[in-house]
């Protein structure tokens, strides 16, 4: 009975999130877009798209996603169809920032798989994702008018990693970070390997697209490394045989940098250890909201273990975990099942509270 009552109480909440944006050009009508090449401490510049509310009545917080999957569409006149992790946040008053990470799409520099975090020395020109985030925020605070000096980061999957990677030695303006299904340790439990077992099907498919060489900044990666018609995956991979056959001319043909790194590091060696962001999740100051799905085929491990690492290694902390019955990223679907709406709403509420300093008696 209590459970039933609980459901009824939730109904108003559901109805607010289910309301579709009535205006297909909502973003264009409510935000101004600028694009910037933000310089990093080593001189490389990262492509960044900044959507600022047309409402200048008050200063707004930044909400940023750093991604290897493009911050497009590119061009001052082309707008994203939606902003932020949910429609509710889009209407909530944020300066939304999208950045191509180093070496991807329109950013300069070289991309490195799961950039190893470094212990930072002051005045060093050495970079990692923490310094790139720091340098970006430093620039945003100084160059974007109407900000309230507070920054949040979020991201699902690979962008979840970049959210996590902003946490060590975080810029003091970062107040709230939500790593969602964050890629965390690709040898022990996320994506590429589980306990050292190679996730052939996912890796083969993902790297065929993700591993295309990018010698210079591009707005679009063209196609895939190779064309493989896989209709019956069981049959295809059985016939493929030994994994080294994946580098035959008709497949990777040694053109995949990451693919060869995977194949060349078959034990939990320095390559993989240096990419385990957990070892750096110490003295975390921002509030953290880790989100994951119990039925996420890709990064359930990362969600649980990122939360655990902060709990164990960072005292005190403001660390939270939400795990729902979701596939990879299903909580962010706007047309998903009811539970998705529920959690989107809860997540939103939490982030709003952190970044807008709305006082509330509930958390």
């Amino acid at each position, binding site marked *: 009975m209590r459970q039933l009552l609980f459901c009824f109480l939730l109904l108003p909440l559901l109805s607010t999130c289910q309301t579709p944006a009535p205006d297909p050009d909502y973003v264009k009508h409510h935000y101004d877009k600028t694009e910037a090449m933000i310089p990093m401490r080593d001189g490389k510049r990262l492509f960044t798209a900044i959507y600022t509310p047309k409402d200048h009545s008050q200063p707004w917080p930044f909400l940023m996603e750093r991604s290897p999957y493009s911050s497009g569409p590119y061009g001052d006149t082309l707008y994203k169809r939606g902003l932020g992790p949910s429609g509710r946040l889009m209407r909530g008053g944020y300066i939304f920032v999208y950045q191509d990470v180093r070496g991807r799409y329109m950013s300069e520099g070289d991309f490195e798989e799961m950039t190893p975090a470094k212990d930072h020395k002051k005045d060093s020109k050495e970079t990692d994702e923490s310094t790139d985030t720091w340098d970006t925020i430093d620039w945003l605070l100084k160059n974007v008018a109407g900000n309230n000096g507070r920054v949040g980061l979020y991201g699902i999957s690979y962008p979840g990693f970049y959210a996590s990677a902003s946490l060590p030695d975080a810029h003091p303006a970062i107040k709230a970070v939500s790593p969602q299904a964050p890629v965390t340790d690709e040898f022990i439990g996320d994506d590429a390997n589980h306990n050292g077992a190679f996730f052939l099907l996912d890796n083969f498919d993902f790297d065929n697209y993700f591993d295309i060489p990018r010698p210079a900044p591009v707005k679009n990666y063209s196609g895939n490394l190779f064309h493989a018609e896989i*209709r*019956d995956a*069981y*049959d295809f991979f059985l016939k493929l045989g030994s994994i080294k056959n994946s580098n035959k001319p008709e497949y990777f043909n040694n053109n995949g940098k990451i693919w060869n790194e995977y194949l060349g590091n078959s034990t939990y060696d320095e390559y993989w250890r240096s990419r385990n962001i957990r070892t750096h999740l110490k003295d975390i100051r921002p509030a953290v909201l880790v989100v994951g799905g119990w039925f996420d085929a890709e990064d359930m491990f990362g969600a649980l273990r990122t939360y655990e690492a902060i709990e164990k290694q960072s005292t005190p902390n403001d660390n939270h975990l939400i795990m729902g019955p979701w596939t990879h990223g299903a909580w962010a679907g706007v047309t998903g099942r009811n539970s998705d709406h529920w959690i989107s709403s809860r997540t939103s509420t939490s982030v709003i509270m952190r970044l807008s300093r709305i006082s509330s008696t509930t958390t």
Partner: protein
Amino acid sequence: MRKLLFLLLFSAAIAAHSQGTPQDSTWIRENYYKIERYIPMRDGIKLFTTFYIPKDTTEKHPILLTRTPYSCAPYGEDKWRNFHTGYLRYYLREGYIVVSQDVRGRWMSEGQFVDVRPFVKDKKSTTDVDEASDTYDAIDWMVKNTPHNNGRVGVFGISYPGFYSTMAAASAHPALKAVSPQAPVTDWFMGDDFHHNGAFFQMDAWAFYASFGKPRPQPTTIGPSGFDYYTKDNYKWYLETGALKNIMKLTGDSIAFWKDLYAHPNRDAWWQARNARVAMHDIKPVMLVVGGLYDAEDCFGAWNLYKAIKTQSPATNAHLVMGPWYHGEWASNDGTHLGNVQWGSNTSFWYQNNIEIPFFNYYLKGKGAEPKLSAATVFFSGANEWHKFDQWPPAAAQEQSIFLQTDGTLAWQAPSGKNSFSEYVSDPAHPVPYTEDVHFFRTREYMTDDQRFASRRTDVLTFQTPVLTDDLTLAGPVTADLKVSLSSTDADLVVKVIDVFHDDFSYTPTGPVPVRGHDNTPAYPMGGYQMLVHGEVMRGRFRESFEVPKAFTPGKVETVKFSIPDLAHTFKKGHRLMIQIQSSWFPLVDRNPQKFVDIYTANDSDFQRETIRVFHDADHPSRIVLSVLAKGQ
């Protein structure tokens, strides 16, 4: 384009004809009346019979009779069958007197029911009754007592009523002119329903007898109740229920025939008396045997009843029709597909209008020209075409062997190597499912199911030809001739003949081939489909004799040779022929304990794993003997 137009017109015609209309229902009520009568048999027992009779008295009408153990319901002269929903309404429009009779001992008929009651060849007294004599007495009464009948009687029926049709043909009543046994129950030990080559089809048997087999002490209009299962997953239920003796415990001794099944594990005199083929001598009526190539129940009966008539009663005017049908589908409104596999046209509609109705119209009404029915009218799946033959198997079909090879291929040449075999471990605790999905009642569609799930198991052997460069058409019997050695003393061997579709195969005429991924579930992926064309099981202990079972000697290579029902199928150019071999087919077939013990009384502890080797070398060539009608180069 012309083809498309034809299809459209054809579909429209089907739609118009196959939908029963309220007008039919009204017309039947206005033009027919129903009576119920008890018809006395020679021994005084009376059988309950319903008559639907035309009001029209301007001409005399033929009688079309079905004798059934499944009830001639609904009972009551004011309650009518829904003839208008099916093709039987055409017989009413033609003015047939349509008669149903409860067979002796079932429903409202008097007497004692005996399952597949043995045919008595030389009847010596009025108490020597069988189904043939009951049919004789029924027909005799009908032609004398039914108003405005023309003295000509036809009998037809599907499945068990098919058995009663066979027995009607043996009654030799002169008024009986035409008989159509359809999917006729013919031999319950060799290939119909409850055993195939002596292996017990426990799921069909139990599903049937847990209800059908209950006693009926008095005539009644109320049917027996069913059995209450604790799960809807039949693989789980039969696996957990375990040895056959545990199923017997569920019924006590209440189901007489269930006890009979257990008491006759071999093809003894009791079973031989229950082979309907023994009655097929000197058959006078014209015969139309009908069956389904994909009938999970009585495919054997159709092929083999026809063959028995041709062999034992050569003067009989007998015809065979085999279509791509599940059990009884030819009498339904849709014969376009089975499971995932399409037949290209409404084969049921074609049969009804081109075969059965003209057949009865000519022989019972003298209407129309004599239907020039070929000896055998057979649908070839794969090619999706009807073909007519003046004998079956066709004279042009050549017996040719295809051999299992060391490298997992099939070839028309015998293997040449030495001591070459493939082996697998057959574990009764993890039997090979007969179909991939989870369900309770045995599916009809398993007969064309995709066998890729089985190819992926370690206890299923797979052999296949290279991609065919010409069509390969099979027409006639198939024999598996396997050279095997067992680590124990008994095993079942299941051989499946499979058509492997090419990787680009799709029934979708245009657009991309459906591919499954993530959450989308488009049409079933037909590219690379492994279509079961026919499978058959052999209980190894019967390899030398079905009457006298014999243990295997562990480690010794022995021949297991058995027949698979006839095939009529074209493996199209670009496809492959595949053979799968396995030692369980669960829960379709009960599990062999893999030990030479009586299976019906075996304990759970008797069931054991064993290693089975199938040889493919020069000394022990395993082969499948096919009837090849066309194969190109």
